[in-house]
């Protein structure tokens, strides 16, 4: 960076109507600062921010051949951008403008005119001192890889992937399990419209798999993330399916022939079994089986191979190995979703003790026509239709001791949905729901809940269950009815627990890889809770769906599209403009000790092993300056807030104005921190 010696400074003292002028003697300020030899022009004006005021600055730059401008006015948070643009119009580098805040931090907070005027002079001198040490700064540029990576193939990831792909960008969609579809694929119906989940989801799954711009990697996990917005490089581990994706026709002969059959099916919440070679569910995308190597007899003992024998296209391939892929992409969408909290820590509810105590997701599978009972609600213990079904809400939600402190948000609605669905299928059954508060904000949500009560006769009991005791075929519930104010002991046939939802397994590890934050509950943190709800704190990483917090399907889809829109906003840019106020390393001074690397929250600093010094990745650096403060030798500096500039400001503010006015300009040495010897 070439240093421009700033010798001709113009100072512009704004009245801001009477806002400044009433408390600060602006003429005196103009007088006082002219004692500085570098100030070749000083002027005052009622409103420098107005068009006329800006023009007067531009004229002065030309007339007096100014190389830098100091404006004594309102807060830089207000008009710094305005005056920098004006300077640019006058042909100056915008960073040759400094603002002395003599309104918010002077005239508005002080009453004594003399003191305020004196302080205004000091603030002006500090700004002059700072701008003298300014260097021209130019925003950097970095290229954008026109490809998106979406992590997680549930409804959130599918929606984000489709939206980005529709905008014409290539998308890599990564899913950890053998099929996309996520939690929504396990559901029976969706609230509040009761349309079938599979009917609206499966077309989207197929669309994602066949879209010309989407590359799908299932059974694949993210191993490593490097790079920064516009230029991420992500390492994926594509686990060996041991079935050739190209050759397989999805006929299903292999899993019919597999002798290892009694493996609990994860997709069915363990309510039914699968073989060692399997597709998780009938509508899986891709419809290509995987071999569960830990269970497969061939992999365990080397004997078997039945699946390979029956596979006519010869797709089964025992020698296939994990594949490591590297994806270059410009942005990353995180859509890792959620999982259910295990009810095991709530032993009093007897989930561990009785087969007839189930979670709500297990109930979804029982109610689903494609589920283990073909859509019949049969209690697990005796395969009979339960006459009474009891639900309990907030199992682990709003629980600061054994569960999660937050409201899981979707349970009230899906429980109402379950109640209605059971009443529709078995009108004679008796449905009872224990709740703490029924929370139904959402379009048509409360109407839906009221319908459960009014049209279906579902009994809502404000209260909780304290103990479940199983004797014979009955569950004895020790509960309380809060509205009656007394104990309510009853029996039921089936107890459904609305367990809390929590971030998916591995979310924390992924967050670390992405160098982005999670909240105290392990959900991904947004960059700003109001204004940047779908961006993470790391540039180029966007959040989609329940990885960010509990969400229902409509909200998930809305956020997925919002994340996609934000992502597209990055991908369409030909170049990314970077903040010029970033760290800079003086390589001759740096000895590569990496103390600065450790303080950088963005991993923007790294040691160049060959040169033995630290280098700054301009695209990652956000300009906090922590590294500049941490470096013991002063080898790291922050452009725009350099050591020299801050020290010059300190000097201007601390040295007594009287002596300062007469003193020679402060000498400045090349050593950024070097002490001056003028005092």
């Amino acid at each position: 960076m070439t240093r421009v010696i700033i010798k001709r400074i113009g100072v512009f003292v704004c009245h801001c109507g009477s806002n400044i002028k009433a408390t600060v003697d602006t003429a005196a300020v103009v007088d006082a600062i002219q004692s500085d030899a570098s100030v070749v022009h000083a002027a005052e004006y009622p409103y420098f921010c107005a068009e006329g005021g800006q023009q007067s600055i531009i004229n002065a730059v030309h007339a007096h051949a100014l190389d830098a401008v100091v404006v004594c006015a309102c807060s830089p948070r207000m008009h710094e951008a305005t005056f920098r643009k004006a300077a640019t119009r006058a042909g100056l580098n915008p960073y040759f403008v400094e603002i002395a805040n003599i309104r918010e931090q002077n005239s508005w907070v002080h009453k004594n005119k003399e003191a305020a005027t004196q302080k205004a002079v000091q603030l002006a001198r500090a700004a002059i001192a700072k701008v003298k040490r300014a260097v021209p700064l130019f925003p950097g540029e970095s290229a954008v890889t026109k490809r998106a990576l979406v992590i997680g193939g549930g409804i959130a990831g599918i929606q984000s992937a489709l939206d980005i792909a529709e905008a014409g960008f290539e998308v890599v969609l990564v899913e950890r399990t053998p099929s996309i579809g996520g939690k929504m694929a396990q559901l029976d119906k969706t609230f509040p419209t009761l349309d079938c989940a599979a009917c609206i989801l499966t077309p989207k799954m197929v669309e994602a798999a066949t879209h010309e711009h989407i590359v799908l990697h299932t059974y694949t996990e993210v191993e490593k993330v490097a790079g920064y917005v516009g230029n991420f490089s992500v390492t994926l581990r594509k686990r060996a399916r041991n079935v050739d994706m190209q050759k397989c026709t999805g006929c299903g002969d292999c899993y019919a022939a597999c002798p290892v059959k009694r493996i609990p099916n994860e997709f069915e919440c363990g309510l039914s079994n699968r073989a060692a070679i399997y597709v998780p569910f009938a509508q899986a995308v891709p419809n290509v089986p995987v071999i569960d190597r830990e269970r497969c007899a061939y992999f365990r003992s080397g004997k078997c191979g039945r699946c390979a024998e029956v596979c006519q296209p010869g797709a089964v391939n025992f020698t296939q190995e994990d594949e490591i892929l590297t994806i270059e992409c410009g942005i990353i969408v995180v859509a890792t979703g959620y999982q259910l909290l295990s009810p095991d820590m709530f032993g009093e509810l007897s989930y561990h003790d009785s087969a007839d105590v189930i979670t709500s997701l297990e109930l979804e599978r029982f109610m689903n026509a494609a589920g283990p009972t073909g859509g019949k609600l049969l209690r697990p213990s005796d395969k009979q239709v339960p006459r009474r079904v009891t639900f309990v809400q907030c199992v682990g939600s709003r629980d600061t001791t054994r569960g999660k402190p937050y409201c899981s948000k979707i349970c009230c609605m899906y429980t109402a949905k379950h109640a209605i669905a059971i009443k529709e299928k078995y009108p004679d059954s008796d449905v009872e729901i224990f709740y703490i508060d029924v929370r139904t904000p959402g379009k048509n949500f409360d109407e839906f809940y009221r319908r459960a009560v009014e049209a279906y006769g579902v009994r809502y009991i404000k209260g909780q269950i304290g103990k479940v005791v199983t004797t014979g075929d009955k569950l004895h519930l020790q509960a309380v009815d809060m509205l009656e104010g007394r104990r309510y002991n009853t029996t039921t046939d089936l107890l459904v627990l609305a367990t809390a939802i929590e971030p998916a397994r591995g979310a924390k590890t992924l967050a670390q890889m992405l160098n982005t934050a999670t909240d105290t509950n392990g959900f991904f943190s947004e960059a700003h809770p109001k204004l940047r709800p779908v961006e993470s704190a790391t540039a180029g990483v966007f959040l989609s769906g329940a990885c960010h917090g509990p969400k229902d399907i409509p909200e998930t889809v809305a956020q997925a599209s919002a994340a996609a829109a934000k992502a597209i906003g990055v991908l369409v840019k030909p170049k990314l403009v970077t903040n010029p106020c970033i760290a800079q390393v003086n390589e001759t001074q740096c000895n590569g000790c990496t103390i600065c690397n450790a303080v950088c929250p963005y991993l923007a600093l790294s040691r160049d092993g060959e040169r033995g010094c630290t280098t700054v990745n301009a695209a990652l650096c956000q300009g906090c300056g922590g590294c500049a403060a941490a470096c013991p030798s002063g080898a790291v500096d922050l452009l725009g807030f350099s050591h020299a500039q801050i020290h010059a400001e300190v000097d201007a503010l601390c040295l007594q104005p009287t002596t300062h006015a007469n003193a020679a300009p402060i000498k400045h040495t090349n050593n950024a921190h070097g002490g001056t010897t003028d005092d």
Partner: protein
Amino acid sequence: MTTVMIERCMTCGRCSAACPVAFAMDVPPHFWAVRVRQGEGESLARAEAIWSCLACFCCAARCPRGVRPVELAEQARSVTLRKENHTATFADETVLQIISKKSGKAIPQQLIVAAMRKKRA
């Protein structure tokens, strides 16, 4: 007045549902924190319920908010006992009562001590 974090109670009722003897209480546990919060600790101290509490800690163990109603019961008992200035005599009477009622049987020492503790100011 109390170290129990009564303001955390969200009146879910799990304490009363967990309590093995709530069915027989005039004021079940889920009212306790609320009563104290509303400045009606006096009415809790007068309730029979605080004497039927078994100090079994089920309410505290199952409370999702870390409120410990069991402690409120004991604190309310002490308030009453201290106010009425119950002396050792009262406790000793209780012990005598136990021993006379169950004479000849092996009453565990811990029961006698616990009963004294409960009834002594």
